[in-house]
């Protein structure tokens, strides 16, 4: 299985935040969901991937090519959707096409008009009059009309209504029917990932905590429920973090097998959602109040 992207020990520091030694890879032919709380470093990582930010150190390769040496060649094969509108808002889709289309060698007008029609977007209206959903559709339209091999999306579903969110996910699903395509998208709406993501990469406070296959992740992690009496100084160390109530505790384990060995039938172990994993991992930084 080949990697489309490889991040090797990438560092980027700002005044109040830094990405620390980030290393991970994105598998070709799959959808990778990039999750993390607000301010965890999702946008910074994506901007580094798009070379919108200069890294302090480390190495990024895309399609096996060094990002610094082959920037144009790489961008030719990438479709990028940003979470805010960054198109000139006084121009219409028709005018933007005149500007953007000639920049891509593989621009496909048939594909462009097919999606324009599918998204029911007005071609001649200035985009400043568009709703947020329409602007996102338009950004996707321009990102996929050159038939890119790799699509990067920064929070494409945030702020969209459920109907349109579902439409975006269905579109991504349609794109993925071609097994040569790869999608990497960041989100904090984890239910979106339940629908389409094959891999999950999780960033927390500027560090990649894991980058794993979704199914594998949901098998390894588990929500453990049991009586508070089971918790002592040694057993609490087995959990990522614990939520304690009057009736008992609920905790996240990163190794279901080990938890079963320790507690046996005294606890109930359930399959976690991605949201559970995110919640408990974030909470994990807090000192346990036992």
């Amino acid at each position: 299985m080949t990697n489309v992207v490889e991040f090797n020990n990438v560092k980027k520091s700002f005044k109040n935040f830094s990405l620390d030694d980030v290393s991970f890879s994105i598998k070709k032919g799959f959808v990778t969901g990039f999750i993390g709380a607000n301010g965890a470093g999702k946008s910074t990582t994506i901007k580094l991937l798009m070379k919108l930010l200069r890294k302090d150190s480390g190495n990024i390769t895309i399609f096996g090519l060094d990002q610094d040496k082959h920037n144009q060649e790489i961008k030719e094969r990438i479709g990028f959707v940003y979470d805010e509108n960054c198109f000139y808002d006084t121009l219409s889709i028709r005018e933007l096409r005149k500007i953007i289309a000639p920049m891509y060698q593989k621009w496909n007008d048939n594909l462009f008009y097919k999606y324009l029609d599918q998204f029911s977007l007005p071609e001649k209206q200035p985009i400043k009059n568009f709703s947020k959903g329409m602007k996102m559709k338009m950004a996707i339209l321009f990102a996929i009309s050159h038939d890119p091999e790799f699509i990067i999306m920064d929070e494409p579903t945030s702020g969209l209504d459920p109907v349109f969110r579902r439409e975006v996910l269905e579109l991504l699903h349609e794109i993925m029917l071609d097994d040569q395509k790869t999608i990497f998208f960041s989100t904090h709406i984890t239910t979106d990932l339940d629908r389409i993501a094959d891999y999950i990469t999780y960033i927390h406070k500027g560090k990649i905590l894991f980058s794993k296959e979704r199914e594998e992740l949901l098998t390894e992690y588990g929500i453990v429920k049991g009586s508070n009496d089971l918790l002592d100084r040694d057993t609490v160390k087995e959990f990522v973090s614990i939520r304690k109530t009057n009736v008992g505790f609920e905790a996240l384990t990163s190794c279901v097998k080990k938890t079963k060995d320790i507690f046996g039938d005294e606890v109930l172990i359930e399959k976690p959602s991605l949201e559970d994993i995110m919640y408990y991992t974030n909470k994990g930084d807090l000192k346990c109040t036992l």
Partner: protein
Amino acid sequence: MYSLILKDFLMLKKMLLIITGLITLWYILQFSSIFIIALAGFLFISNTGSFEDRNNSHIMLNSLPINRKSIISSKYIGALIFGIVTVCLASLFQVVFYFVFDAYTQPFPEVYDLLIGILCIFLFTSIYYPILYKFGEKYTRIILMFIGFTIIVFGNIMMHLFKDKIETIKLFLSQFTANQLLLTGSVITVLLFLLSWLGTIKIYEAKDF
């Protein structure tokens, strides 16, 4: 490159109409060609810079398969094209108004006036773009106002300090022909334009978005 230049002209299509209207008005009011070309250039260039920041478009541009050098070069080439188009327009207007107003004694503007007009556009471009790409639109306005103010104050101080030596300066300059002075001015301005072009590329290449 063509797309990037086209983008500036598409973005400013309304502004171009306004500028054409203003050029017409200034010719009716019989302003000097230098003033007309320079002011039209100032309006165009300062607007090509400001819409980029307003639209957050650096992110969009830098996600396309173009390098940062081309993005900056398109601005300088755009300024050059605008200068040439304005000179053609200015000449055209003078031809038209030559037949309308008695004040115009010749059908075409003086070549000197056209050249100085273009040099003014070059000079403004050389100053404006490096400041814009280094500090952003908001601070650029303040910096330009500060530069304008400094020039006025500094000019007045110099006039005051050298008021006794004005004759000497005039004498010094009179040993050169107008052509020599214009040629020197042109060479300096073009060099400044090229240096600014290279410098702005460096500034933009080092930028984070």
